[in-house]
């Protein structure tokens, strides 16, 4: 397990995109920092959640496809003690990368707030909490949302070997999830109570956390319910992805 996890980090650390993505994140945040509504932007770490999600969809989709494209999946499988460890190691690797990206987003936020767009970090903002607490909690919530997206990307990766298709489907879930979920929850009242638990709804967790009034009418779920749903779907998608990967013939 330790050795196979090391292999994943080794490969991940040697890919250019791994190191290039944080620079893209910084450029994206600088561009966004120019908009008004300083406190909301600071709480949202200058809209980094959207940029991080795009990065994770692209990077995550290559984690399995590189094994298929380089004929490395057979070697990877027999060199790993268990099939589960191949899947789990990749998940752990990108999850840690997710944490690093969020950590960098916080550092970049402090830097931008100190230079381009000053804010008062300790003044109360949302949920009767200081802005700095809002920002840290929003980041924590976004880690949950992005982990949900990773589990979706991994599930799709086990079904489809093509990197491009996985990226497209992943981005589609990200960008059209809100519209699809909105359509589903606007149905008849009998179905609405069930439809509001659809997985697309859970992808709006971060947005609802920073803008509750703007999103509650769409999701029809509280923040806690969205968080619970997201966690449940992460487990479901992870389990389904692993079972498909286990049954897959190489």
């Amino acid at each position, binding site marked *: 397990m330790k*050795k196979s996890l090391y*292999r994943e980090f*080794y*490969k991940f650390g*040697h*890919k*250019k995109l791994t190191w290039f993505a944080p620079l893209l994140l910084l450029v994206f945040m600088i561009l966004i920092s120019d908009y008004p509504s300083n406190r909301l932007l600071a709480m949202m770490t200058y809209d980094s959640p959207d940029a991080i999600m795009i990065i994770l969809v692209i990077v995550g989709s290559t984690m399995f496809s*590189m094994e298929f494209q*380089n*004929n*490395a*999946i*057979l*070697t*990877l*499988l*027999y*060199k*790993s*003690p*268990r*099939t*589960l460890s191949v899947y789990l190691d990749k998940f752990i690797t990108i999850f840690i990368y997710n944490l690093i990206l969020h950590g960098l987003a916080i550092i970049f936020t402090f830097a931008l707030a100190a230079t381009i767009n000053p804010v008062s970090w300790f003044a109360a903002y949302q949920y009767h909490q200081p802005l700095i607490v809002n920002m840290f909690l929003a980041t924590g919530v976004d880690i949950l949302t992005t982990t949900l997206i990773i589990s979706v990307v991994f599930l799709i990766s086990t079904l489809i070997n093509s990197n491009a298709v996985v990226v497209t489907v992943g981005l589609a879930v990200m960008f059209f999830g809100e519209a699809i979920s909105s359509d589903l929850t606007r149905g008849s009242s009998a179905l609405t109570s069930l439809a509001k638990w659809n997985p697309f709804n859970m992808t709006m967790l971060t947005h609802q956390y920073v803008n509750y009034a703007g999103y509650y009418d769409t999701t029809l779920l509280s923040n806690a319910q969205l968080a619970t749903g997201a966690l449940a779907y992460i487990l479901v998608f992870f389990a389904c992805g692993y079972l498909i990967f*286990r049954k897959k*013939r*190489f």
Partner: protein
Amino acid sequence: MLKVSHINTFINRKKIIKDVSFQVNSGSIVGLIGPNGAGKTTIMKTILGLTKFTGNISVEDKTVTENNHAALTRVGALIEHPAIYPFLTGLENLKLYSLDEADMNNIVSMLKMDAYINTKSKGYSMGMKQKLGIAIALLNKPQLVILDEPMNGLDIEATILIRKIIKQYAAQGSAFLISSHVLGELQKVMTNVLLITEGKIIVDEPIDEFNRVSRQQYHLLTEDMPTTEKLFAENQIPVTKSDDYLVIPRKLSDQVQELLYSHHIRLVELSPQGLNFEQTVVSLLQQQRRQSHEK
């Protein structure tokens, strides 16, 4: 070392490998040969726990299952294509799997890869990639090495070098299971023959025994070959064709002569022949195909 007992492998619910059993002992080089689609690669994948199977596979008495590869810690393999990440250098590709840097550097020198091992592997030729794939399989002093078509894309110098290295590792106790379509190459290194067709092992014996038996063939020519063939088929005498002759097993030569005599077919020639390795393999495969067809 490697014990394969009564394995059946299924792909899309179709039985590909049928009740196969064999052993590979320390220091032996077993040549797994057979026609395309016979199941050579599937057997190799099954040993590595990469396909669904029934039966038992063990390496050093540790059982391999489809989802538990703990028994394969000292097994090296090259299956189908070398597993190489193009964004890594050759050395970085080796480092991914290496547990002993000195051993890794030794393999690099042995395979004469020093000149390009520190360059990105995306620029490697087919032969360079193949050598790197073999190097990965040889890492960490493996007890068992499984090589699927190892000579693919290699030039003559590299082929000779790999042959020498395989013999060297076998002399140190490593066991090898090698499949190749280049029978001549395989013949130069293997100590045992495993001939497979239609998912079944039809020959499993030391190469010396195989060569001895392969010489026990007779070439037969009669005045009426069509009737002779028909007669043999009716009497279930296994024969194969070689140019204008029929090839029969030596042990059946008396029975054949009696049969021809009783049917008044004049014998023109019945002479002992030494088939070469390739001819013997082809002859055995033809016999097996005919027997399957008759069933």
